[in-house]
């Protein structure tokens, strides 16, 4: 009992919670739990307050964002120049993955709809992860390709006029 007490004093339960969270993210599906530690090492945490802009449409993208808790709204300027909410991102979902492939302008604006904690994966960190741990890299690259393919299919299958 005493030993268990000492262990729980030294061990940080928060890490387990984060690792369990990462296991549920589709981008990391197929990565072993032990390897997820390297992914967690490469992530940057940040909390955004309600109403803060995470990035704006046309900004150059450099990171992927995973929502840990809270909610993010993605909006785009319509033809009249008015922002129109196109999606909501909830815990366990991610956005901005295009930035991991090429440094191109963002196609939407991301705003925190409430106090939100995100994990950021920067392209430079992903690159070093790909080279240092190719097993993780292969999984992430394959998942990214799947996600982009799904997005493209969704665009093509969208009824005309939408």
């Amino acid at each position: 009992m005493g030993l268990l007490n000492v262990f729980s004093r030294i061990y940080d339960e928060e890490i387990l919670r984060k690792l369990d969270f990462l296991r549920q993210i589709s981008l990391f599906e197929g990565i072993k739990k032990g390897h997820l530690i390297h992914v967690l090492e490469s992530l940057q945490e940040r909390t955004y307050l309600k109403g803060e802009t995470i990035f704006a449409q046309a900004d150059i993208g450099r990171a992927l964002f995973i929502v840990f808790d809270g909610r993010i709204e993605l909006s785009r300027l319509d033809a009249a120049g008015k922002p129109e909410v196109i999606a909501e991102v909830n815990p366990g979902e991610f956005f901005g993955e295009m930035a991991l492939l090429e440094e191109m302008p963002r196609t939407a604006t991301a705003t925190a709809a409430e106090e939100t904690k995100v994990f950021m994966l920067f392209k430079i960190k992903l690159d070093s992860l790909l080279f240092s741990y190719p097993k993780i890299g292969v999984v992430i690259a394959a998942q990214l390709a799947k996600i982009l393919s799904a997005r493209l299919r969704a665009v093509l299958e969208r009824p005309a006029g939408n």
Partner: protein
Amino acid sequence: MATDALKKSYAQFLLPVAIGIAAVYFIVVAKGALFPFVLSAALAYVLNPLISYFEVRGFKRSYAVAALYITAGAVVFLGVWLLFHFLSSELQDLQRTWPTYAERLQAYVTNLNARLVKTYPVLAKIGLEARLQHLLELVPQLLLSLLPALTLLFIVPFITFFMLIGGSGIIDYLLDHLPARHSELILHITSRIDGSLGNYLRGILTEAFVIFLIAFTGLMLLGLNYAAVIAVLIGISSLVPYLGAMVGAVLSSIVAYLQFGTLLPIIKILAFFTGIRFFDDWFLQPYIMKKAVDLNPAVILLALMAGGEIAGIWGIVFSIPVTCILKEVLQIAIELQETEFRWKPKPEPTRISIPYT
């Protein structure tokens, strides 16, 4: 209305500017006191990945730091005890034999000087002998002047301990309070600088330690006096690229000449240091420094000389890390000019003519 907005936009900078001015004033007034903190921050920065390694594996930060200190303390204690074991006898020996060596060196120079002056009378004006006499007298003084630096050995680990424990909290706080819209760009820049600078510093420290070990073992096997002292000097000078092997070769050759008085040991030592140099170039550097920023030796030399000119010995110590940061910042600045400020037309995104099937 517009003036109000303008006033407001100026007003928001008042506090940061005031804090900035106060900080600069504080640095100017108390620069002496800040120095151990700068060194500690640098040490904490170098050690932080080790703490993060354990932290991300579930150990609470404070326990990871404590474990690191206990382990490092034991290793350093053992290392220092062993080193002193070797060094103290060598230093005592040096103290005993220094006057003889100094006399021999002086006699050699006097002899050389007499011959040179005879052939080239103009050299008499330089006063080579008097200069050497002055230099030899300076040696004990120089050793004494290093003593205050020893106090840093106690203060720096003490401050570093608290920086390692509390530092990440301060950094997280600052990160959370960056302007939200620009945090992606700022974090991108800091992670790039951190990537190349961190790898460089950790790489160069590992390299210096490996070279120290090889030099120590090699010189012991060659039976040279003061192997420990010379190996420590080689290790420290290895922090400056190319200097380690050179310092080692010159120092060891002088000691070998004074100890053996023949040419063969000097040739052996020169061959040994040439070997170290190649080993460093072909094996150590490609492996240890592969992820670090690539600095041209000429740039390193310029940085060292400029660092020495600006801030003396500590300028030299910090010149390479600062150059790393400057190089990365310059590179990022040029990239930003191209991506954010459109200096150059953007590269076309990849386009594929065959439709999605």
